[in-house]
């Protein structure tokens, strides 16, 4: 592909449009997670509902190291999972991570997306992939995956599931 003096950000624009579209559904799901169910889990090996919902929210923030850094090294991180007390805390955590992701994408020129990006723990490299593949699979699809799980958690607690890609059994009948 020919390079020009002026950077374009067509790839980021498409990612932003997609993230905005998916965020409507994500917000609708998170707003329905009641604080008194944060400790509930469907199986002893499952993540509790509060942890799963927080994970869905925080993953938006993985956009920033994907765009801005060549790697993420667990050995250099001091990660403390956010622990929401209320549904509002949870939604706020999502909104902050989401806004940060959009801001980061707005500054991402097309040429960065083919650069390699690694996930590592010190010397152990888990994977190295082009940034576009990391954004696609480890960030966006990963969010959708866990949000899908969360939709089952809602159903099992008799909380209406919002329409997602189409109607749910509760809402949005065609």
């Amino acid at each position, binding site marked *: 592909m020919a390079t020009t003096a002026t950077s374009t950000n067509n790839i980021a624009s498409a990612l932003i449009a997609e993230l905005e579209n998916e965020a409507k559904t994500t917000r609708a799901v998170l707003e329905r997670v009641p604080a008194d169910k944060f400790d509930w889990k469907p199986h002893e090996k499952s993540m509790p509902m509060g942890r799963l919902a927080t994970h869905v929210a925080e993953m938006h923030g993985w956009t920033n190291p994907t765009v801005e850094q060549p790697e993420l090294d667990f050995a250099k991180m001091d990660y403390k999972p956010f622990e929401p007390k209320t549904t509002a805390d949870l939604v706020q955590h999502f909104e902050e991570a989401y806004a940060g992701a959009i801001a980061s994408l707005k500054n991402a020129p097309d040429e960065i997306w083919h650069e390699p990006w690694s996930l590592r723990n010190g010397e152990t490299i888990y994977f190295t992939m082009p940034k576009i593949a990391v954004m696609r699979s480890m960030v966006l699809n990963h969010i959708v995956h866990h949000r899908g799980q969360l939709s089952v958690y809602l159903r099992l607690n008799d909380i209406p599931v919002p329409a997602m890609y*189409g109607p749910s059994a509760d809402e949005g009948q065609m």
Partner: protein
Amino acid sequence: MAIRDGFVKEVEQESVATRKILERIPPETFDWKPHEKSMSMQRLSVLVADMFGWLEFMIDQDELDFAKGYMQPQPRTTKELVDFFDEKLAAGLASLKNAEDGVFSETWTMRNGDTIYITLPKLDIVRQTINHMVHHRGQLSVFLRLKEIAVPPIYGPSADEGQM
């Protein structure tokens, strides 16, 4: 790089985990559902297996009209389920691999006779179909867990397998 290249790679990559999940679903759980409003294990797994096959008519045709009928099979065995997935995946990938860039800006419509559900550029519809598959596969992973079937690693380790 052609637009199709990224999609082909992604569909192939996502299919690894999808196949692993489908291979673990025993037929005796096909009728099970975790809640009366949920899809049954069979219906959800057939949907997940079917979805990459949608790429065939999303790319090669301009619409899907439910009024003209749309059938999904009812597999009786795990092998039938996985074979269905492999067949649909191959069909979806074949269309994707032939798609020139111009195809992705054409519009595609989902309708039921005169009722139009969505009209979107094919680029968006392909994108959403991948996300849609990932969504239902995520649900299916919870179904597995609830039936004490080991969940394979998907984007990272599960509580059962693939510890880093």
